[in-house]
């Protein structure tokens, strides 16, 4: 789960959380329906409340002492505070988010960058926009020029995501511009998924891959296949002569070499049962990192369930995702 203790949470997140705590359970679904992504929400920040308090004190002083400077300062503070609320409110409108990809992967403790595109559809610049996930600021845009798009990279590292599969339910666009007295936000629904794979840990599985005979009970592996012709290329200086294809060399008038590649399709089915499951998963990631791209492999997960056997580099990704998902429901980030 997301560790929220180490970071300061945004007012939007806390506001929703507290509102839900205050309202009865049966209202939560209704509240969900009431929330609109196009709507801008605004609350005063702590500094805003301090300033409102100072303005109130000044006002009482002005009345009590009949003090003209206190009157003027009160009205000046009031003006700045109220106008800044309007600016904060408008600063978040007409800003949209689009996403070039929907799936992102990373490992526990590593930087996970999610590129997004911010679109400013207004005629004026937008300033100091923060993108927040789970109440944590994951990107900051100093200025978004009018009628432009800008690529923004969300860095999810600060969320301290643990192993799992996450769906970004909503991305909060927030601003404290201009004076940090108010915090305005709205949110966008973006269908982004994030897989957090376990961080690899060196394991005995690593050596077992190279020595099938000593694999032991924890690794079941089949080794089928042979070397096959792969490509013809020119002979390079210093290479042995035994691979030269003389016939072809005569035809092409230059020494040609027939290159073979090990086309062995190794099928591995790694048993991750026994021992501490998180460690096994971490070792499995490490093993998968070492594994040949062309290998056929799968896992017997710690709960005894067999994964599908995947072949090829791209499909190997699915195995990483299986390891990320193991024992976890898809979690929502908002």
């Amino acid at each position: 789960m997301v560790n929220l203790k180490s970071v300061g949470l945004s007012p939007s997140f806390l506001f929703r959380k507290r509102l839900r705590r205050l309202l009865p359970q049966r209202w939560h679904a209704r509240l969900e329906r009431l929330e609109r992504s196009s709507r801008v929400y605004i609350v005063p920040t702590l500094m805003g409340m301090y300033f409102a308090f100072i303005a109130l004190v000044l006002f009482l002083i002005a009345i009590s002492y009949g003090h003209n400077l206190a009157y003027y300062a009160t009205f000046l503070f009031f003006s700045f505070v109220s106008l800044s609320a309007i600016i904060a409110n408008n600063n978040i409108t007409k800003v949209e988010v689009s996403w070039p990809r929907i799936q992102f992967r990373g490992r526990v403790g590593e930087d996970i960058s999610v590129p997004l595109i911010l679109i400013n559809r207004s005629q004026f610049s937008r300033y100091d926009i923060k993108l927040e996930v789970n109440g944590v600021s994951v990107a900051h845009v100093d200025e978004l020029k009018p009628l432009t798009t800008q690529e923004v990279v969300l860095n999810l590292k600060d969320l301290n995501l643990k192993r799992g599969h996450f769906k970004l339910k909503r991305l909060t666009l927030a601003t404290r511009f201009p004076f940090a007295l108010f915090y305005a936000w709205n949110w966008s629904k973006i269908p982004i998924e994030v897989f957090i794979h376990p961080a690899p840990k060196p394991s005995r599985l690593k050596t077992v891959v190279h020595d099938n005979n000593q694999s032991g009970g924890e690794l079941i592996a089949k080794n089928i296949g042979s070397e096959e012709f792969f490509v013809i290329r020119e002979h390079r200086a210093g290479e042995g002569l035994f691979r030269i294809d003389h016939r072809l060399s005569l035809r092409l008038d230059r020494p040609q070499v027939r290159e073979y590649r090990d086309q062995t399709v190794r099928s591995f089915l790694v048993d991750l049962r026994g021992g501490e499951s998180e460690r096994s998963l971490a070792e499995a990631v490490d093993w998968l990192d070492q594994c040949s791209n062309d290998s056929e492999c799968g896992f017997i997960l710690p709960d005894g369930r067999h994964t599908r056997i995947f072949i090829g580099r791209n499909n190997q990704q699915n195995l990483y995702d299986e390891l990320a998902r193991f024992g976890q429901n898809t979690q929502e980030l908002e």
Partner: protein
Amino acid sequence: MSFGVFWFAWIFVGVGFLPFYALHQSSVINLFSVLWGIALVTRLRQWHIMGAVRFLSLGLAAFTVWQAYDGFRSVEAAGGLFALLAVLKLWESYSTRDAFLFFLIFQLMMIAQYLLLESLWLLGFIILSTFLMFSIFMELQGQQRLSSLFKNLGKRRVLAQILFVSLILSTALFFIFPRSTFTFFIRSSKQQMHPWTGFSAELRPGQITSIMQDDSTTFRARFASETPILSSMYWQGATLIDSDGFNWQRDVRISFKGNSERRGKERFLYEADMAEPGEGALFLLQPTAQFKLLSHGVVRWRGLNDVMVTPMSNRPLRWRASVLTELESSLSIEEQESLQRAKELPADVKVWIQENYAEFASLSALELRDRIEELFVRNFAYSLEPGAYSGTPLNQLKTFLLERKVGVCEHFASSAAMIFRAFGHASLVAVGFHGGEYNELGDYWSIRGRDAHAWVLYYDENLGWQRFDPTNLVAPERLSLGGTRYRQLWRERQGIDFEWSDLTQNSWFSGVMKAVDTAYYQLNLAFINYDAEKQRQILANLGLENWRRAILRGISIVFALIVVLVFWLWQRESSKGSWSVVNRIYQAYLKSLQLKGFNVTNSTAPLALQQQLHEQSYASVCSKFIEAYIKIKYDTHKKFPDRDDEKLLRRLGREVRRALRTKS
């Protein structure tokens, strides 16, 4: 907190506190200066101050304030404490939050200072400091270098918009919001008020000479209709009754019937405003008919027109008064005692005067006055730089009357008053100002230090208290020309080439200075001296004298809401959709075609329009516009038009209109 923000904060706290040193105790000022310096050094050297040291410093600050103000229950103590807290906050200013907290404490410090002093400069400081503080707040959002604020035109524009609307809104609310006719708290602090003018409770030789060196304005007066002639414009302050032979002192126990305001025929109604807050004698044209203090304060009448005021707020004093045309001469029994005091003189001085001026004996007050006139006219000279007199009071008197015979108004007034007393006539020395400088731009008189003056009040059995100004005999130009012009004349006679004040007499520079002074005076009247009575006057001028405070309060709230709403609508308009400019240009294009007589509506498709225009001689220009419009608007790859698209459409739109005009 970046170094830039630290610099701002460091300067803020210094500028916000040190110029008001007169309002605080020296121990607090000293401690503040030390802590302020340490903040700078530690920041420059990148030294970290330990928490324990900070805690001890906090304790020291609290203890110092407690000692200096005898507790924390006064506005001065609050101001001092907040100032020290603010400067201590600078010691540990690392994060953005620290910066915010610093400015909060700073504002609390400034609130305390506002209560200690009301001045137009402070109003300017409020606006400037608020603006700069919010600028820094704006910059702290991005957590970037402070310099980037001043580079980002867009942010500057937003800030300028907020400042502009805020100034309008706050100024309007300032005038509309109903003022109380009372205050819950009047000055209950232990603040020491300072005399305005340099006049103290006594008059020593040389005192007026030093006051006359001061060019700054002491007070300003505006006459309602009639203005007295310059030579009779005596702004009388304190009356000094006790004398040691050459120096004079006030005696608070002495009072005369003629000291209080009297009803009768009155002239020269005027309103006057002190330039600075302070306490002491007010300056009134004598004899006073009616007098009203327009600001909060306690009035004490002590001598002939001797009005002492202790202000109950930290606002410069304002008063309204007029001049009585008929004098009263009768004295009550109590006044006879005071009159006796006005005849007292040290024995040695008395004997010396009687011996030296034996011919003055047994003369009436009026005759004596004539003889003193003759004495001064004959051999005495008036000088703005008479030099110091030393020795015992009698020696000083002897030196002046027999040897040097050079002096300024105070020497003549002092000597004349003593001669009166030596021969049994009651007399006093009155100090104040004579004349002033008329500002025709603002239609008011500025009375400056250089107009300081002293004269004699003597008692005539038949006429009562009479004013006698020996300076009028020795240097009549001083009274007929006024202090400023006489000073110039005197310097010309003395052969003194240049003085800074000459510059102010230069025609254009003088005009500029008068304009600045008028603006300052008017702003002071508008902002610092604005009160319930002025508000009533404004309402009465508008024919709304029946409006009650509740109505004004309601209007203030509605006005504020309207301004905020208008600002919101303005901002909303500015954040309109991305296609709005393109649509607007196209609508303008359609409208120009409609005016030309084409049967087009807003719903006419661009291609159909192009067909319709095909036959026209200016079709090519119109087609270009429509093609560009279609390309921009219906290009599926374009999410919104960019600036170049808008520029192109605008240019083509102009060409279309030009073509249509040419055709017509």
